[in-house]
């Protein structure tokens, strides 16, 4: 019951932060977006410990968007590399936990509440296919263990966008909320040795795999013809409890440049 309340609370907050805020597209044809991102990581992996540990990972991202009046789609690729630290680890010979994250996403959205005119909210419904590789290498004084998780999930999603004028420039808020309904995972075995580790791959049911992702973005045109800058914030929470319980939360802050190609 307590968990249901928390999930409900997250849903409400995600709706608020996702829908009332932002996503990433200007209503203006195809564009490419480059950005530098900084991610705050928060993880607990029972293969390693019951301790929660925090991390930082700078990264880069490349996206291609196609925006039309009544639909949009995008493909993006993220790469991040950083490390976790926790006071608990360094007491007992643990050097560090290195983190590598790779993510590819494909999405298609269609408007279900059309914009009749001018500066209004527009709402979309769509699907998001996401592939994620999360690799944490636990380094201690004599050995290392690779804990690699691969997730492939498909999620019905909703998005919203609202154009507005700021300092005489065209700007746009956008938001996205995504909750997967099906996932295929590739995860380390129950006890992961220093070497000869095995992996399990399987479809995960909703009870064992839960993920929620919200993204908010603000775009503002720099010039009417070619460029815009954007700021975005993403919160991505993931929980897997089929063997060992693993929880990850990532807060990704990004700043980037958008270039129109059509």
């Amino acid at each position, binding site marked *: 019951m307590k968990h249901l309340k928390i999930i409900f*609370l997250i849903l409400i907050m995600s709706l608020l*932060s996702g829908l009332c805020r932002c996503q990433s597209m200007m209503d203006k044809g195809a564009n490419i977006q480059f950005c530098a991102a900084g991610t705050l990581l928060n993880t607990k992996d029972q293969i390693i410990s*019951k301790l929660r540990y925090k991390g930082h990972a700078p990264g880069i991202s490349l996206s291609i968007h196609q925006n039309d009046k009544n639909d949009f789609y995008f493909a993006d690729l993220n790469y991040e590399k950083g490390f976790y630290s926790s006071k608990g680890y360094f007491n007992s010979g643990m050097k560090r936990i290195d983190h590598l994250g790779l993510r590819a996403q494909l999405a298609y959205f269609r408007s279900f509440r059309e914009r009749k005119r001018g500066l209004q909210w527009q709402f979309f419904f769509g699907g998001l296919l996401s592939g994620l590789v999360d690799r944490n290498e636990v380094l201690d004084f004599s050995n290392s263990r690779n804990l690699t998780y691969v997730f492939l999930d498909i999620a019905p999603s909703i998005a919203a966008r609202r154009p507005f004028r700021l300092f005489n420039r065209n700007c746009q808020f956008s938001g996205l909320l995504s909750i997967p309904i099906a996932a295929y995972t590739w995860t380390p075995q*129950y006890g992961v*040795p*220093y070497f000869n580790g095995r992996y399990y791959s399987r479809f995960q049911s909703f009870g064992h795999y839960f993920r929620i992702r919200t993204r908010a973005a603000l775009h503002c045109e720099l010039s009417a013809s070619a460029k815009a800058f954007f700021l975005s*914030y993403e*919160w991505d929470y993931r*929980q897997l409890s089929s063997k060992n319980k693993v929880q990850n939360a990532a807060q990704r802050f990004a700043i980037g440049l958008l270039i129109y190609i059509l």
Partner: protein
Amino acid sequence: MKKIGFYTVVGLLLWSCEQTLIKDEGTTNPQAVFDDLWQTMHDKYALFDYKHIDWDSLRGVYRPQMQNAHTEKGEFEILSSLLSELQDGHVNLYSPFATWGWSIPSIENLSFTSINRNYAKRGYQVNGGLIHGWLGDGSGIAYIRIEHFNQPIGGIDEVLKKYAQSKGVILDVRDNGGGLIKNAQKLSDRFADKRRLVLKQFYKKGPGHTDFTKGYEVYTRPWGSFYYDKPIVLLSNRRCYSATSYFCVLMKALPRVTMVGDKTGGGSGIPIDYILVNGWRIRFPASYATDAEGVNFESGVPPDLWIETETDKWQQGADPYMATAKKIILGP
């Protein structure tokens, strides 16, 4: 400004929600530390059944003692005592102030001084972790010693080419405490004649004491520029542990290899580690392995030819293992 305030509040709510979802269970409470260690071992240690250990009853013995420990060092002593019941050389407890481990009882039955003085009179060379030379008695027997498997074995092809015309090779792994299995496997593969099943590995797949995966089969994979087809005698003792026990299993499966000496120290499980809720670390095996016939070699790999260790002979500088190895290679 109102909007900025609203978004900041929502962001902070998300952040606090995240802290609620991912609870940090870190604590220095002695009972909680004990429970974390006991439960983790209960769920993931692979050898309770093999060793006939009643882990539940040990909890009843040691957990009450934690209340009277009073100091971290006292807690460390109690946890070490609990782990010592396993009598497992792959089990360790690490804290900022001490490390605990268990050693297999063994006797002195190797003297490199004796080998250098009485057998390797013509000196030795060192190549990529291999210490090798001709026996100095003109018998035409090569002697190769491997002290550990921590690093990849380099130059084995060149070393074997050097001894291609020898009558046989003595491979001495006594007192080799182990290292990486892949290094041991790479070296044993160099002596392999063909692909053959040599061992099976079983990994924990759930918290039950008998929850194991199917046996993952390991095969020899011959490599190298030529096949060494002379007799090989492998010398072992109780101080051969972990990857060295693997090496002995792999070598014993090959033709022309005779294992001589004492049973190895065992150590078939591959260790994992885990951080306890107070930041200390434990290390323990979460798997075990058997030879091709299905015999778990956790307690040691028996030799083909067992040699009784007579302490007085060792003290006189003799090495009965070396003498026996020579007899096997040269024949009657």
